[in-house]
């Protein structure tokens, strides 16, 4: 054990940083969720009071609803699109590298830049999308003020960001499937669509499971997208856009803790949310695992 100190030293940076910047704060926030704390003054122990407030806070439930809707609206097209794109790309002979990079670029672009771009494209009165619709004679669509369309725009943004990322993972999975399986399917007279649904998807199941879990965790944590799209200003400290239709749970946590100086309540929000994420990951796990006749 001790004779390996060099190796331990080499891997220690991650563990030290994780301990200091993730592990300790996580448990400190759990402790905070039982206190009332404005960030500077004395902490006051309030027991489960913050969670009681949470239970009867309509804005919290609204934010949960928003988050789940945005998550569904973005995860389904993201994963499906990624799988389709990966399959297409898998059969491409030339320019493979170019396509891979092109489809992956959105994911490495700064999220703030993408959000600003989307905000300009979908702007109600002067956006590109409404301008294009206008040429076809469709009247302007209120992308950034209608409660549903706000969610659609945020979901689109997330789809744009994450499709390429998941596609790369699927592509790796596809390349691991032996060609002989496909040849056998072709011999049996299966068309490309049928092959996709009956060969590709079942074999890819563990990889799909992985992306579903990752996307659940990622998708539920949407924060920057609505924050940048509906940046608050000094005159209006509200977040999440008109009617709070884009207020995700993490954004609400940020507002409570850092704008309203209510750190205890903010901590309670994220811990309640943590429980929710765990539940949803388990449900997804079950759904994807189901129907696996081993």
């Amino acid at each position: 054990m001790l004779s390996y100190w060099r190796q331990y030293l080499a891997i220690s940076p991650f563990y030290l940083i994780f301990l200091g910047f993730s592990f300790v704060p996580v448990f400190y926030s759990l402790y905070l969720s039982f206190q009332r704390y404005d960030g500077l003054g004395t902490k006051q122990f309030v027991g489960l009071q913050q969670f009681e407030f949470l239970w009867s806070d309509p804005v919290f439930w609204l934010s949960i609803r928003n988050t789940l809707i945005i998550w569904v609206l973005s995860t389904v097209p993201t994963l499906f699109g990624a799988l389709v794109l990966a399959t297409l790309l898998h059969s491409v002979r030339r320019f493979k590298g170019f396509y891979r990079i092109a489809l992956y670029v959105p994911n490495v672009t700064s999220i703030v830049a993408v959000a600003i771009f989307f905000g300009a494209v979908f702007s109600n009165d002067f956006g590109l999308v409404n301008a294009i619709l206008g040429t076809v004679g469709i009247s302007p669509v209120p992308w950034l003020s209608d409660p549903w369309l706000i969610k659609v725009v945020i979901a689109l943004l997330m789809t744009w960001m994450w499709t390429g990322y998941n596609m790369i993972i699927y592509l790796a999975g596809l390349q691991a499937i032996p060609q002989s399986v496909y040849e056998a399917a072709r011999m049996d007279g299966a068309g490309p669509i049928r092959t996709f649904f009956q060969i590709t998807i079942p074999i890819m199941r563990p990889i799909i499971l992985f992306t579903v879990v990752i996307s659940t965790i990622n998708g539920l944590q949407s924060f920057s997208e609505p924050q940048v799209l509906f940046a608050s200003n000094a005159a209006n400290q509200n977040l999440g856009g008109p009617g709070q239709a884009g207020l995700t749970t993490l954004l609400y946590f940020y507002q409570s803790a850092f704008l309203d100086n209510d750190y205890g309540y903010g901590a309670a929000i994220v811990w309640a949310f943590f429980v929710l994420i765990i539940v949803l990951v388990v449900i997804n796990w079950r759904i994807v695992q189901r129907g696996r006749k081993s």
Partner: protein
Amino acid sequence: MDLSRRGFLQAAVFTAAASGLTVACGGGGSDSGGTKNGKNLTMWYWGGALSDKVVAEAKTHFKSQIKLTSSSIGGDFKQKLTTTLAAGGSSVPDITGIKGEDIASFLPNADRFLDLNDLGFKKISSQYLEWKTKLAQTEDGKQIGFPIDIGPTALFYRADQFDKAGLPSDPAKVAAEAKSWDDYFALGTELKKALPGTFLINNMGSVFSIAVGQGTTRFIDQDNHFIGDQDHIRAAWDTAVRAYTLGLDAKINDQSWNAAVGKSLTTEVGAAWHALDIESAAPDTKGKWRVCATPGGPANQGGSYLTLPKQCRNPEEAFKIISWILSPDNNAKSFTDASIFPASPETYAMPAMTGPDDFFGGQKIIEVFGPAAEAIPVSYEAPADSAVMAPFMAELTSIEAKGKKPDDAWKDAVSQAKQIARRQGVN
């Protein structure tokens, strides 16, 4: 960047060691930076809070006694300051800005700051507007903030559009016509008749927040009771809703304000600094705007303070520096250099401020903003005020975005505000 493997590993180990150290000594830290006559002072502010030119002059002016280092902090200033103050130690700046909308939330922790009255603010406080000074004062009279600037409101309007609509366009006449909110909305109705497709206000929230600011009471009273459901707030709410029901509301809650101002938006109610926003959003409307008094009386929006944290390494000198930077004379320079509207009334009579403004067609706008600044009512702002106000603003956007019924929106806003008040320990 060329990096050998060994160099990289060394760097990694050092970083890890350093981060381990910061973790090890985070949170603790001693409170004093040695004796209280430090020669190196640090100052935090954010871009546009102070005139960089005046700050540079201050550095040279005090060079013989003090080395002043200023840093412009980006991002969420309040959050960074709170974190630093909570951590304590020598990283705490000796002088720091605090935004006007945040000052109330720092007052419960006034013990983290020095009382400026002890350092000589008492002697010069008469040079600054009382209502502004009071907002940075605790109940027992401790002064934590030194006023930098204020945001007196006015009515900005397109004089040429008013002319086109056959309305009076001279500032004095418009002010007389738009004395109260109702008069102003009546004016707007006429304007809309004459020029279809134009709006009077950008959104209900801006009317609501100014209407609240015109009063002497806000959402929480001095005995820490929630009063956000009472008549004065209801009246401000109804005023905002009236603009909406009359069809004068452009319902702009996104970045499209920039493209609308000066085109479909013919008037704006806003603070003095708002002139810059209009100017940068609609440069081609230069010379066509005028300002006059706010309908229903002046209010304040924004404006900041300088404070000295308790850890300040040299309180006497630091106070000398801030009172020099914010002296009436230097405030005139700050106004010229960075359009920072001073909190010292005697500056209003100085040439820097009395000149004509080209953007407003040569109007001497200080004649509107000066009296407004001095007439702003003294009001009490509780630490939780902005948090309690948030649901009202959110519900107003719900009316605009979803067509929610104003009465339902009011009920929801009040019940949410009550809950936030309870969470923050208001009864």
